[in-house]
């Protein structure tokens, strides 16, 4: 038997919840302090997802919605990296789900009011499980920036949404990856809801020219770190173990 506990979150390296520059947070962000308590079984055991849920094209967004193998519009990119915990241990079998706008900055979603065109060959939806070394890779299209109503009309930098499950519910993470060099990053209130510069920069996918040259596609590297889980072994092991 071993006891597990999650490393406490450092909220200074996360976005502020109540951040009026991001207008939607005004009536949605809770005002009270969160209650802290020690990790229990609920937060530290599962869920884990089986590889049999993953289809062959799930991590290829250029093909998983295309009709007759027609490529979506825009330029293809590789987005890759590793998922590890705060102790630098790679996490095998982490489920990564991504979603994004198409090359014109339009989501395949009824609530997207941006007048840009949809792409009939692109849904913007993909997923994969990390390998034994924590590695993941997606083939997709460079998402476009797009306007949205906030304090008047503002522009979202190019980004891909990431949802990640590690080994436990307490490691659950939802975030966004941005693209190195995008001038819209520093203007974005959602990015700026993170005050810490180093934390902010950790969300920027870095252009990897060596991988780009090998594959003849632009490649962006985005490493993800989930919370560490400490294990304490009880001294009731059988002799000889």
């Amino acid at each position, binding site marked *: 038997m071993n*006891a*597990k506990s999650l490393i406490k979150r*450092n909220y200074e*390296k*996360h*976005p502020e*919840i109540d951040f009026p520059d*991001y207008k939607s*947070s*005004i*009536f*949605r*962000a*809770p*005002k*009270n302090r969160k*209650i802290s*308590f020690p990790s*229990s*079984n*609920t*937060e530290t055991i*599962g*869920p*884990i*997802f*089986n590889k049999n*849920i993953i*289809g062959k094209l799930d991590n290829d967004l250029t093909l998983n*919605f295309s009709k007759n193998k027609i490529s979506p519009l825009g330029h293809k990119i590789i987005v890759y990296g590793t998922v590890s915990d*705060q102790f*630098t241990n790679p996490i095998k079998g982490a*489920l990564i789900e991504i*979603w994004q706008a198409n090359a014109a900055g339009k989501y*395949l*979603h*009824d*609530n*997207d009011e941006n007048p840009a065109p949809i792409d009939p060959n692109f*849904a*913007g*939806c993909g*997923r994969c499980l990390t390998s034994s070394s924590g590695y993941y890779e997606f083939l997709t299209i460079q998402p476009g920036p797009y306007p949205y109503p906030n304090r008047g009309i503002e522009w979202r930098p190019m980004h891909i*949404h990431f*949802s990640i499950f590690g080994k436990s*519910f*307490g490691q*659950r*993470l*939802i*975030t966004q990856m941005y693209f190195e060099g995008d001038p819209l990053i520093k203007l974005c209130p*959602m990015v700026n*809801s993170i005050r810490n510069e*180093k*934390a902010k920069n*950790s*969300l920027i996918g870095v252009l990897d020219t060596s991988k780009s040259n090998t594959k003849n596609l632009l490649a962006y590297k985005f490493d993800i770190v*989930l*919370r560490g889980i400490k294990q*304490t072994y009880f001294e009731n092991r059988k002799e000889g173990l």
Partner: protein
Amino acid sequence: METIKAKLDETPFQTAGPFLHIGCMPNAIKINKIYQNDLGEIPFKDKQENELITIEGSVFDGNGVALDDVMIETWQCDEKGQFNEDSGFARLIPNNITKKFTLKTIKPGSYKGFDRKTYSPHVSLSISARGLNMTLNTRVYFEDDELKNDPLLSIISLDNVNSLIAKKIKKNSYLFDIFLQGDKETIFLDI
């Protein structure tokens, strides 16, 4: 015990935004070609209707408006209090018209934790939506269970503990509304 120090910072959260369905529940918005099933459609397989309970409710913003673009993820142990890594997870979105989410699941059992304390039956929730820069966490307990010795509930003052307790509305059926702001603001947890 030796203390191990973390070497890396956790990757920061960002909002899941209004279009999270595309990545998390594509079939729910008629993107049907890609995944055979949405993740977390049913928390436990092969259960009979009479073994299931229903937890329903809405997520209200500070204006009292029920959100329709929120995603709620639920995680729980089985009826014996056992966590099985591959079952017990569900994803929910509110119904378009009623704005209510509905979880059909088995009633979790109580369990003895690593700390040897007994936890009352509960379902853990993770809430993501546009306007939430970080996912919110809370728990659902059940009003018809023994709750007074639960290690979490016992550290919360009596005034606001009720926001974590689902009301029984009929046999096997519970109501659990979530209030993001206001007098009834739900207790959210730093898990």
